[in-house]
């Protein structure tokens, strides 16, 4: 321990690390009955790093072509040492990351952390969530198995429903009229180059904003604290809160390992573009609610394609939700109640439709 101290002093003398991390050391995190929700963002961040690491490892052996994609994933899971673990962890971490990001988003809404001055933090976070969904969508196709092939086909057909630009959008997504090698090439570059670059930039902005404004205290707690200043509680970010973060990460990492070992990611069968669409094709669970909505909508609503209305509905809901901090003020005195109601409704809607689609035939 003496050596460690000596090394630390040596570094300290030259680089003044203490000065560098001073803002972190003086940073505090409010402590109240909702503090546990502060962990969700950190967990999502940790899972993102797991994705980067395992993604880099998968890149060593993966080959993005229709002839080789499936075989290379098979090769990774069967021939490469611990390849099964890397792929399964990547798979489970992706799913958990999206789940945690969604949970983080709803906790922010319910704790009203998107209020002034944190509007841009909210917007950057929402954009990151959309990117995460993009990661999931593009990554799903990469193993080139039957399920992912047809799920991508169906999803891009939905995009083709958009009026005027629909067909152009479909061709842009597929890189041609059909899902094929060009689609795989596009999705691959999107998954490993475009989205990571965008996500890294946005993530830095998001973290900087979080750092700048500190943790938001829910209005109910804040008002109580203003009334009774003695009950205000804070903990240091370093090391107290960071240790809690680390503990959460340990739990998540352990869960990832258990899931990867007990329920390894399946590969299915290689996609056959000439085969008929198999019965009961479903997208990944995080698109199930949208998928089921489109299925439940009638073919025509007031003479317009039901699917079209559905697609527009999602677009509109997403845009409104993104602009949430700016819209709340316009809703008048009861704005926050409306937002809370919308969030609860959204959770019930997404949850129930996802379950319905999951168990539906």
């Amino acid at each position, binding site marked *: *321990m*003496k050596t*460690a*101290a*000596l090394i*630390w*002093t040596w570094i*300290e003398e030259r680089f003044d690390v*203490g000065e560098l991390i001073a803002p972190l050391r*003086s940073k*505090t995190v409010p402590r109240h009955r909702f503090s546990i929700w502060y962990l969700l963002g950190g967990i999502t961040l940790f899972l993102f790093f797991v994705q980067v690491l395992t993604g880099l*490892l998968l890149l*060593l*052996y993966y*080959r993005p072509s229709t*002839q*080789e994609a*499936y*075989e*290379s994933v098979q*090769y990774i899971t069967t*021939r*490469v*040492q*611990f*390849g099964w*673990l*890397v792929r399964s962890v990547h798979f489970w971490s992706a799913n958990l990351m999206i789940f945690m990001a969604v949970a983080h988003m709803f906790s922010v809404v319910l704790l009203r952390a998107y209020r002034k001055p944190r509007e841009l933090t909210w917007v950057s976070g929402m954009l990151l969530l959309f990117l995460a969904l993009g990661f999931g969508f593009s990554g799903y196709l990469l193993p080139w198995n039957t399920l992912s092939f047809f799920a991508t086909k169906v999803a891009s057909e939905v995009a083709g429903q958009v009026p005027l630009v629909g067909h152009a959008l479909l061709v842009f997504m597929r890189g041609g009229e059909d899902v094929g090698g060009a689609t795989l090439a596009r999705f691959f570059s999107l998954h490993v180059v475009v989205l990571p670059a965008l996500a890294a930039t946005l993530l830095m902005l998001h973290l900087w904003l979080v750092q700048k404004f500190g943790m938001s205290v829910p209005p109910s707690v804040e008002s109580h604290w203003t009334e009774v200043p003695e009950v205000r509680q*804070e903990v*240091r970010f370093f090391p107290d809160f960071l240790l809690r973060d680390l503990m959460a990460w*340990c739990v998540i990492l352990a869960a990832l390992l258990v899931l990867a070992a007990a329920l390894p990611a399946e590969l299915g069968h*290689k996609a056959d573009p000439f085969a008929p669409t198999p019965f009961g094709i479903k997208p990944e669970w995080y698109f199930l609610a949208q998928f089921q909505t489109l299925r439940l909508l009638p073919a025509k609503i007031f003479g317009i394609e039901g699917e079209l209305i559905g697609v527009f509905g999602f677009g509109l809901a997403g845009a409104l939700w993104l602009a949430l901090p700016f819209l709340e003020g316009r809703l008048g005195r009861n704005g926050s109640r409306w937002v809370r109601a919308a969030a609860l409704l959204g959770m019930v809607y997404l949850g129930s439709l996802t379950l319905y689609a999951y168990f539906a035939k």
Partner: protein
Amino acid sequence: MSTIASAAPTSRGEQLIASSMPRRRALLLLMGSLVSSLGTLCYPILRYLIPPGETNSSANDALAGMVGELKPNSGKTFRFGSRPALLVRLATGEYRSMSAVCTHLGCTVQYRPETQQIWCPCHNGCYDLNGRNVGGPPPRPLPAFDVEVRGQEIYVSRKQVA
């Protein structure tokens, strides 16, 4: 600004040294478990980085054999993807290749030099050297493959759909 109970020592090193015994023990435990966690996680990653000896195979073409391995008027079965396939060298020296899965009940067919036909032992089905079913119960021809000789190696690939 919130306050922290103990007065901040001038440097981290002094702080560590100044810390009380139980706290120091907890820190040691923490460091130990951190190192072992990282170690046990790095081990599979390092093993993952070692390339496995066998090369990555593709389902669209396969190494069927070597030049000189087959005498004229003989054949061999090899693995193509997950199914057996047949490589035949005709009496003229030309190579032909087709699926070795009989279209009748899925037995593995073989080349018969005596009749210069492809023959299924299960029900005596016969195919000609283009894979066409010419005798016995097989209802359909055997899917034929393209053969390409690259140097000393004979590769077989699925017929490209025009």
